[in-house]
């Protein structure tokens, strides 16, 4: 009689549904998650589950398609924006990369072009991590006439034992008719524990 009552309630279904499990996730962070349905599948639940899965899938497919369209749109808008704002004939861009040991923390980069302050960029920890891992940041993009120009770059940061660093570099460069790219790599490889800018011009 009791069993009959138990069977009449939904609790048994719930208990068994959540009772079956499997582990699945990143190593070291094993979690127990519902993996399988109850021992005795309830046809209504199975049917509802299939319907929900179908609805989820339809929505998911639509979202996938929409995301792709928006990504393509962003690509086209990105290209248009650059062409409009920074035509190739006048474009100049400055990039920052890092090639430093583990203990150098970048705080900021300041750029002056022809003695005019164009950027003073403060870094988040996330951005610094991305640079350390090999990312390259376009820290400035602007327009310059053809001819000779001067870039002055200063970076600040902290080294081991919270020692503050402030290092600068200047570069005279010729701006031709094509876009001009300048890469500033903050490196401590060259001069042993002393981070410095290594400047490279790209055409």
């Amino acid at each position, binding site marked *: 009689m009791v069993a009959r009552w138990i069977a009449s309630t939904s609790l048994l279904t719930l208990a068994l549904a959540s009772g079956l499990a499997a582990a699945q996730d990143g*190593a070291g962070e094993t979690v127990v998650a519902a*993996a*399988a349905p109850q021992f005795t599948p309830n046809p209504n639940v199975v049917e509802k589950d299939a319907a929900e899965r179908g609805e*989820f*899938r339809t929505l998911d497919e639509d979202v996938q398609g929409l995301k*792709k369209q928006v990504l393509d749109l962003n690509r086209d808008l990105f290209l248009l924006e650059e062409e409009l704002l920074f035509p190739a*004939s006048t474009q100049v861009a400055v990039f920052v990369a890092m090639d430093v040991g583990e203990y150098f923390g970048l705080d900021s980069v300041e750029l002056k072009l022809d003695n005019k302050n164009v950027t003073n960029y403060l870094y988040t920890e996330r951005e610094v991590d991305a640079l350390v891992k*090999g990312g390259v940041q376009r820290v400035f993009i602007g327009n310059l006439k053809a001819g000779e120009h001067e870039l002055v770059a200063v970076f600040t940061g902290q080294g081991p034992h919270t020692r503050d660093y402030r290092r600068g570099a200047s570069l005279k460069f010729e701006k031709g008719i094509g876009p001009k790219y300048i890469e500033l790599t903050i490196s401590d490889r060259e001069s042993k524990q002393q981070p410095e800018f290594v400047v490279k011009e790209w055409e």
Partner: protein
Amino acid sequence: MPARLSILAAAASVAALAAAPAGAREKHEGIVVQDLAYGEVLFGYFQEDYFTALTRLLAAQQRNEVPHHAAEAELMLGGLYLSYGQHRLAGEIFERVLKESVEPGFHDRAWFFLAKIWYQRGYLPESEAALGRISSELPEELEPQRHMLYAQVLMDQGRFADALAALQAWKRPSDAWIGFAKFNIGVSLVRLGQVEEGARVLDEVGQMAPENSELNALRDKANVALGYAWLQASRPVEAKPSLQRVRLDGPFSNKALLGVGWSDAETSDYRAALAPWLTLRDRSLLDSAVQESLLAVPYAFAQLGADKQAADHYTDAIDAFNGEIERLTTSIDAIERGALITELLGEHPDAAPETSGWYWRLDKVPDTVESRYLYELLASNRFQEGLKNYRDLLQLNRNLDRWTESLGAFDDILDTRQRAYEQRLPNIDGSLASVDLDALAARRVELASRLQEIERSEDVVALGTAKEQQNWRTLEQMEPNLAALPNDAESDELRAKQQFLKGLLLWDLRRDYKARLWAEKKALGELDRQLREAQRRHHQVQSGRDDWPEKFVELTARIDGLEPRVNGLKTTAATALARQQTFLQGLAIEELKAQRERLRTYTVQARFALASIYDRAAARTAPATPAEQSLAGAPQ
């Protein structure tokens, strides 16, 4: 998260497969950026800003800015699509790229992660197919996950025999995984009808030494599942020991206490059953086991003949159920007004727009009435994946809003440039007209041919200084006059002097000739360079002047073409967002309605039992029929 980084590293560079923990600030030694655009993509990618990284990579590929990373860029694209939850596109790229000469370790990992996202999103056949493409053992941290994922994919498709075979074929599950493997073996056996055998395996899991919180949870889960399986098979005696092994302070303790009570009740030991059930009475009514205990307690009292206590407890239960039904109804109304999704995302720090994609997960549920009712639903893959899509759609909507504003600015910029062009045009035309490059080029040809002639004839005088040339001419002009002089000593002396001076000058001119010829040639080369530069600039200005009207038309057309695309996608994205919200709310509301329905059923059962008790009490004054006696207290 190591798992996360594996795919990041894999996509970033085939050579950089040796993955470091994502949190560690470690340079990927394999990555040598040869194209700045590729470095920019990596910058976005390492910040988990997949949308920006994807946009940058797509633009870079279109402009051919990653020639040195062409193959990696394609893999990167696949990896970024996957990270952004674009599993279909990722699958297509992997399908295409991974066939080629890619390091097998990368190949297998890529398919593993694709299988994982497909599983989480309920694309079970696709997930199974992706797992089937893994050709060798994955790294140590992923290999057990692969086995478990494969079993789960099969179990979710109801293929328990296949899952059982797969799990039994797994030869070396480590200590950390053996419990999970056995658990699923037990479940599969029970689902295949091999209850005794399944129970034996679950019992093993239920008696494993609890080494950490995960294994404790698994142990409890196994014991609850096993206990209820025995109860369902009407074997309450076997059920009780496993249910009693469940920790009292764990997440499964409510179900276990309820089950222990039922196993006692099944053997008619209602007094014993009351102990666990009364313990449950003081726990949160949000739990379904606690709700059921509110009915079970008076049922036991009724069975023990304590009708007054039974009636009191039924009355309390009805009040509690009604209060809960009311709160559920309020919650359902709140969710219908859109409160749930706002609360879920609004209070979550990771809801910031800079993170997106598949890795995001809502792991902190806001402490609201709704979320407390929906804890299990919120933790489910379907809800989490749906929420990710909702979140991504929110970002798409924001992104499209921003572009709508920018497009207006683009029009202004273009107009400004057009006006500037029109203003400068007269000056430009004037400057272009004032320079006769052809005449300059002709003059250069003339100079070159003259220099050639000087070199051919070794005309040393021609390369002399102006003074030297003047002196040479003077000395030459003297010659006819000197020749006409009489042949006397004085004249001879003058002639000898002229010859001497001429010889001296010629000697100087010959001495300096080679150096002067070299300097002239160098100057001619410099002239060439300057002429070419002038021609180039002239051409550039001319092209700029000539090309701009066409460029203006082209840019105008591009802006005009993009406007309807942005607007169209805005409408689509808004609709998709609303649909996604409706879907998620629907899941939540359905869940809450099911809970409310269950409580309504309980309420009816309680009322019926209460009525039966009152009837029985009333009948004590009059003789009762046997049928009436058997009904009293037994819930329907």
